[in-house]
């Protein structure tokens, strides 16, 4: 609890700079240039050092003397990394100007990045293990567009990161005044927390753990049958083992003490064992919600709930704890918890679904027993999946396009599939194998409903649910950077 508490309330985090809070709104509105924390290069270099240590461990395992020499050869490399980091820190500065976050960086190749705050899809605070030692955090801005670079401010003190997060979110909402520091500790309302024991158990009975066990058993069998072959197999399977462990570790770290809370800014997710992260997803930015029921979890009645937010989650290579965009808001939980959370994420989301016609068995024999879909005025819900049952809810106002597809076998069986395309490339939801006549009606209905939803999103009937700020509603259609980044929305 200490890390989440420290992230949400700057007063408790104990870092001295927080105590002297500047006057309300001064740091962000004045347009002055800011620098990152002077310790930033050290933390970046430390990460490289960890990487080197991992490589060295692998080399020592298999290479012996040769590996040790290789490690020595890399020591000057570390010095270069630190020098580069210091230079990078010296030439990096950032400020807020006219509703944009502007980051200037680069010595030889000057780079000036501009992030329109109205386009922010989410703001994350990430605290890698090393940064936590120094009480620092990284602030990440996620904007739409699958190829868009993430706006990163690495590193700030924990208190600064928290304060800027709230102020940037306020700016993103379109309110010109920045919330008073006194009101900063937003009254988070906890929705769900995941017990550690259940998380560990869920990881142990996931598909990857099964693979690991199978590999281990295979190794033992080999040892019994041909002991001479064990050493080379062990040597060559070290990378695989490291990879497996990494994946398992990420799952554990990503889901550890994951807390979902409701705050005036939107949904707050915080989690992490060594590297903690706190994300904020502003309300109305959720593209889809997915509930996954893996086969192995079904006897226990556990489900996983993920949300899809437009925009790249983590930049490639840069300490990417998760390679995917979907964020688990409930890494493992009961059905009731998932229902409660869903009702909060997408109010009025429907659960009633009608199953696919019986003849769909011939077209999708493995999927058939899962196929179903339903809708109400605002959402469509589809269920599919061969082994794991996957149910996704899509707000109709977020639909990008609809496709009705009919293959030769489907034509013979009088079936058709409707694909629901949402922003991002990871989630693919489809209403599979419906009666053709039904599919056609559904297509025109969904098109019409999506149109209505889009319009009401463009012209909100009332302001956003932020009673404490008299903020004008976000007029996305007109001003949301149409001219600035028409393709990056």
């Amino acid at each position, binding site marked *: 609890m200490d890390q989440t508490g420290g992230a949400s309330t700057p007063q408790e985090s104990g870092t001295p700079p927080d105590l002297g809070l500047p006057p309300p709104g001064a740091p962000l509105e004045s347009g002055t240039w800011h620098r990152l924390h002077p310790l930033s290069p050290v933390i970046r270099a430390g990460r490289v050092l960890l990487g080197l240590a991992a490589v060295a461990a692998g080399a020592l395992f298999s290479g012996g003397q040769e590996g040790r020499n290789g490690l020595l050869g890399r020591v000057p490399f570390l010095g270069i990394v630190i020098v580069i980091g210091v230079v990078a820190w010296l030439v990096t500065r950032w400020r807020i100007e006219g509703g944009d976050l502007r980051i200037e960086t680069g010595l030889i190749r000057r780079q000036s990045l501009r992030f329109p705050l109205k386009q922010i899809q989410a703001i994350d605070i990430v605290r890698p293990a090393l940064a936590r030692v120094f009480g620092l955090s990284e602030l990440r801005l996620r904007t739409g567009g699958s190829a868009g670079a993430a706006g990163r401010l690495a590193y700030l003190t924990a208190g600064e990161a928290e304060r800027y997060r709230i102020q940037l979110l306020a700016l993103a909402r379109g309110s010109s005044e920045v919330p008073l520091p006194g009101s900063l500790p937003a009254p988070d309302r906890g929705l769900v927390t995941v017990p550690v024991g259940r998380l560990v158990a869920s990881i142990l009975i996931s598909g990857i753990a099964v693979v690991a066990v199978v590999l281990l058993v295979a190794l033992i069998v080999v040892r019994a049958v041909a002991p001479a072959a064990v050493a080379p197999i062990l040597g060559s399977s070290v990378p695989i083992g490291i990879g497996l462990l990494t994946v398992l570790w990420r799952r554990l770290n990503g889901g550890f003490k994951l807390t979902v809370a409701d705050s005036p800014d939107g949904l707050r997710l915080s989690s992490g064992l060594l590297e903690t992260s706190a994300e904020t997803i502003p309300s109305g930015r959720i593209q889809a919600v997915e509930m996954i029921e893996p086969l192995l979890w079904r006897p226990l009645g556990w489900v996983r709930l993920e949300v899809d937010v*437009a925009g790249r989650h983590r930049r490639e290579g840069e300490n990417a704890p998760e390679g995917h965009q979907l964020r688990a808001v409930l890494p493992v939980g009961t059905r009731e918890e998932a229902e409660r959370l869903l009702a909060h994420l997408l109010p009025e989301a429907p659960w009633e679904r009608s199953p696919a016609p019986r003849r769909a068995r011939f077209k999708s024999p493995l999927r058939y027993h899962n196929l179903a879909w339903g809708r109400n005025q605002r959402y469509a819900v589809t269920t599919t999946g061969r082994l794991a049952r996957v149910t996704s809810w899509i707000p109709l106002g977020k*639909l*990008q*396009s609809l496709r009705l597809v*009919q293959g030769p076998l489907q*034509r013979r069986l009088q079936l058709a599939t409707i694909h629901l395309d949402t922003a991002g490339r990871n989630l693919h939801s489809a209403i599979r194998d419906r009666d053709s006549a039904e599919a056609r009606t559904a*297509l025109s209905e969904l*098109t019409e409903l999506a149109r209505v939803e889009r319009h009401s999103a463009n012209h909100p009937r009332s302001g956003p649910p932020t009673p404490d700020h008299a903020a004008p509603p*976000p007029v996305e259609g007109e001003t949301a950077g149409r001219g600035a980044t028409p*393709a990056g929305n």
Partner: protein
Amino acid sequence: MSSTGPLTDLAPGEAWLHPSPRLASMRRLEIAIATGVGALIVVAATAAAALAGSSGVILAGIAALVAVLAVGILGDWFAQRRVRAWAYLERDEDLLVQRGVMFSRLSVVPYGRMQFIDVVAGPIERVYGLATVRMHTAAAASDARIPGLPTDEAARLRDHLAKLGEGKAAGL
């Protein structure tokens, strides 16, 4: 209304537009070129083998040549059917694009969701004075394109769609 697609009745009585008839001859040319190249390879391989002195290779070569030609003719038949299946319809709020015979697809792309619009013309398309218009949304999966439009119609469609998209743009 010479639509062949089975899905056109979604918007009955509407004036579906089709690619230029020149698209059909363009596809025929493309397949003829591919078939010609295939035939040339077969002939060359047969000749080389015959010169090397293996017997019975001429007969095999002729059989392969016939097969290549048959594939070309079949491919042309499929391509012609596919060309006839392309259709699009500009409605008030969205664009409908229909294509495919075996796998028939109907895409509904709202104007407000279009991020940008491409007009592409490859070398063969340029010879025929045709172009392909491609609509992009924020979803990677939505792939709406219309091939074989005369260049001026392609430009008109692009400008029209861009204008409509601007007026109806919706935030993510």
